[in-house]
């Protein structure tokens, strides 16, 4: 089976290289048959990638430890869900996922553009084939997923326990879908540059792909944050860690790209900027893939050092060098067709938003790579921490939220001050109202940035509601429909517009949660014995009793031992129980740790005890003190050196019993974090908005048919059904 898998990779590489060569030859010789053949080679690549991934998954399901990859990241006791998703916790598996997604995306876009853009498509095919070939070469020569072991072990190592969380298993494919998705607009941009078709053509065909990539990348980032909050026992969701930053950067430039392409579509402006943005986004996506796997930057997420450094750096250098040379050589073709009419227009707001987004991305890039920059310049490796990032990202985020509210109020080309005043009235009033309420009723004034963010969020959400309301009212006035129908019809006919507004509102809500929780989280670290209590925020937390279970991990991660605590949380009449715990996975420790001690060495993860709430989350984590158990463990190690599994289980049960009876004080981290739930709710609104914008509109489909059917539609026909 591994032989078939290996063959898939080799034939896949041949297909990718052939696709690139045939597409280039076809374009050069003007022979479309070769371009068609190249497209089929991409389809074949997709088929092979699906087959290879399928074989690998099968090996995981069957726990085939003759494959090194399976042996190192799975085991017979790993739950099926984690067996299936363990693939992308490995380097080779995640690279194969890249190839799979790339070939699927490429096939989709080539299928969608068949018979169109005959000049651009061959070069785009060649670029996609080249990217695919690079990743396949990595798989074949550097990180072979089908590498076999001469003597397969009886049991695999299992999946890294830190990753045994549903969010963490969905998170990598989402990120990768985002990363890979941006290669489609990139490839078409290169094609457009090469053939000097620098209009909005390549944008219209790939805009949807960019939006899909953006949506998945955003969802992936959010899931990563959720995982951090719920699984890592430190209590936060974002730490400006290099790997987190690496995923955020392409998302930011991608956001800028999705906005600025509208200016090119509508006005033929910003052509150089747009191709540069998509090049930057693609390069950052490559960097994101590479950073997680490279170990060149210290990161809690860097799962293993790798040998991929050199090829990746060379590939990124080639992409940057080639793209810059191409853009420079095409500058005369990229001249803007229009000028900015007025500084008070939506175009101007888009420009500002682009500058802020790119500035934000640059700040993060600088901070992330500062250790390398500093080492290169001064010879000393130094790094910057979260406060440094916050200093720049906070004001930029505030500016962006403000712009996301102002943008929808302004009209394209020009806006009149009188009408601006009219549409600004209600949102500004709401922001002021929010300010007054916050100052009067809460202690929000203690943190100025979050106070500003609250007001801006009120502003943006009001703008969104007002836009929907005014639009529906206008539609009602024209058609006499009922409110719900008018609203649905309005959104349906202007999906991109209202989808975008919804995204704005979602981001504002999300950042509201971020602002509140980063400024007003109450956090306490305490050591408690059973019966003792501690206060955090308005809550009193009492440590009722310790828990200890063997092979009964409630979260289904397959931990052999779980130690925890039952906490009773009270606030006034409100009373509930939380049960944070800690899973010990054991297995490490080597020879010096005995048969029993081994269960406590090695990986341990926090299972957070949390009560979600719209107002605030009560978050608790426990770190049991094992010192009381140290002596019995040592004794058991000595006396039962040759104990078999059954005896070991009995000893563990006895140890658990002992911990329950006589626990040492355990260390707790207690947190009351306000409005964190709104981060996830805001994220949900963003996804809903993105989906609205992505949904193919009935009108567009009908128009496409009509435009094929009629030779010359009247200009007026199009405006009949305006809203």
């Amino acid at each position, binding site marked *: 089976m591994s*032989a078939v898998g290996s063959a898939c990779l*080799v034939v896949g590489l041949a297909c990718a290289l052939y696709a690139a060569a*045939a597409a280039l030859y076809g374009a050069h010789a003007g022979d*479309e048959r070769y371009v068609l053949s190249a497209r089929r080679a991409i389809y074949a690549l997709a088929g*092979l990638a699906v087959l290879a991934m399928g074989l690998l998954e099968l090996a995981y399901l069957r726990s085939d430890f003759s494959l090194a990859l399976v042996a190192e990241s799975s085991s017979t006791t790993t739950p099926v869900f984690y067996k299936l998703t363990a693939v992308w916790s490995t380097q080779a598996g995640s690279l194969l996922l890249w190839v799979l997604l790339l070939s699927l995306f490429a096939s989709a876009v080539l299928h969608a553009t*068949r018979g169109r853009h005959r000049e651009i498509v061959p070069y785009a095919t060649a670029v996609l084939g080249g990217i695919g070939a690079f990743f396949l070469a990595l798989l074949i020569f550097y990180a072979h997923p089908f590498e076999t072991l001469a003597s397969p072990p009886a049991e695999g190592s299992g999946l890294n326990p830190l990753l045994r969380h549903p969010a963490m298993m969905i998170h990598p494919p989402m990120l990768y879908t985002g990363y890979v998705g941006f290669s489609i607009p990139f490839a078409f941009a290169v094609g457009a540059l090469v053939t000097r078709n620098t209009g909005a053509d390549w944008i219209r065909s790939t805009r949807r792909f960019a939006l899909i990539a953006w949506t998945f990348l955003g969802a992936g980032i959010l899931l990563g944050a959720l995982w951090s909050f719920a699984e890592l026992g430190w209590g936060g969701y974002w730490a400006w860690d290099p790997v987190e930053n690496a995923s955020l950067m392409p998302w930011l430039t991608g956001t800028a790209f999705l906005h600025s392409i509208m200016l090119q579509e509508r006005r033929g402006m910003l052509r150089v900027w747009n191709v540069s943005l998509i090049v930057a986004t693609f390069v950052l996506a490559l960097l994101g893939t590479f950073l997680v796997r490279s170990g060149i930057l210290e990161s809690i997420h860097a799962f293993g050092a790798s040998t991929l450094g050199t090829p990746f750096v060379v590939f990124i250098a080639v992409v940057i060098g080639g793209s810059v040379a191409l853009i420079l050589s095409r500058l005369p073709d990229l001249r803007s067709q229009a000028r900015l009419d007025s500084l008070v227009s939506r175009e101007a707001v888009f420009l500002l938003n682009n500058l802020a987004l790119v500035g934000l991305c640059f700040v993060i890039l600088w901070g992330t790579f500062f250790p390398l920059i500093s080492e290169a310049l001064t010879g000393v490796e130094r790094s910057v921490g979260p406060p440094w990032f916050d200093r720049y990202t906070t004001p930029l985020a505030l500016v962006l939220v403000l712009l996301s509210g102002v943008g929808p109020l302004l009209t*394209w080309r*020009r806006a*009149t001050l009188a*009408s601006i005043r009219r549409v600004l009235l209600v949102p500004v009033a709401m922001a002021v109202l929010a300010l007054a309420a916050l100052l009067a009723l809460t202690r929000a004034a203690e943190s100025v940035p979050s106070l500003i963010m609250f007001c801006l969020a009120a502003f943006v959400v009001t703008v969104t509601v007002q836009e929907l309301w005014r639009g529906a009212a206008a539609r009602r006035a024209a058609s006499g429909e009922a409110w719900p129908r008018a609203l649905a019809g309005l959104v349906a006919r202007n999906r991109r517009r209202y989808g975008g507004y919804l995204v704005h509102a979602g981001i504002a809500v999300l950042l509201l949660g971020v602002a509140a929780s980063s400024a007003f989280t109450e956090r306490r670290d305490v050591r408690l014995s059973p019966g003792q209590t501690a206060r955090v925020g308005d809550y009193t937390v009492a440590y009722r009793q310790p828990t200890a279970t063997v092979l009964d991990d409630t979260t289904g991660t397959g931990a052999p031992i779980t130690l925890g605590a039952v906490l009773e949380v009270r606030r006034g009449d409100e009373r509930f129980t939380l049960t944070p715990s800690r899973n010990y996975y054991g297995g490490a420790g080597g020879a010096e740790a005995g048969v029993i001690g081994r269960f406590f060495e090695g990986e341990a993860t926090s299972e957070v005890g949390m009560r979600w709430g719209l107002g605030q989350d009560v978050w608790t984590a426990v770190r049991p003190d094992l010192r009381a158990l140290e002596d019995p463990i040592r004794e058991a190690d000595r006396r039962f050196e040759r104990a078999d599994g059954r005896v070991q289980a009995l000893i563990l049960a006895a140890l658990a019993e002992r911990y329950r009876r006589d626990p040492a004080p355990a260390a707790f981290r207690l947190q009351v974090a306000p409005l964190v739930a709104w981060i996830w709710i805001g994220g949900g609104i963003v996804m809903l908005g993105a989906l609205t914008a992505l949904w193919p509109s009935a009108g567009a489909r009908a128009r496409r048919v009509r435009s094929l059917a009629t030779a010359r539609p009247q200009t007026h026909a199009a405006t009949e059904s305006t809203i």
Partner: protein
Amino acid sequence: MEYALALVVLLAIAALVVSGPLRRREAPGPGEAPGAGEAAGPREAGLAAGADRRAELEAAKQAKYREIRDAELDFRMGKLSEADFQATDRELRAQTIAIVRELDGSRPR
């Protein structure tokens, strides 16, 4: 052994799939050409470029229509003054007509 066999079989399948269009000498079969004029020999390259240009103009025209609708929506929502709307609308319509003219001119005879 198993590896060599798998390699040969997969290569053969891939070659079969990929070489399909090359084995065809003339216009494509019905399954291959859903759009207007799919595969074409070298002689038809010029025609293909023309079709590309038309598709681009067509897309540009649709984009202009959308802009006109957007402007009208903004006007009805009270975000655009009467005078501004008239000016924008006039501009957009003039641009649309230019595109339509070019589209007419590029139609194959």
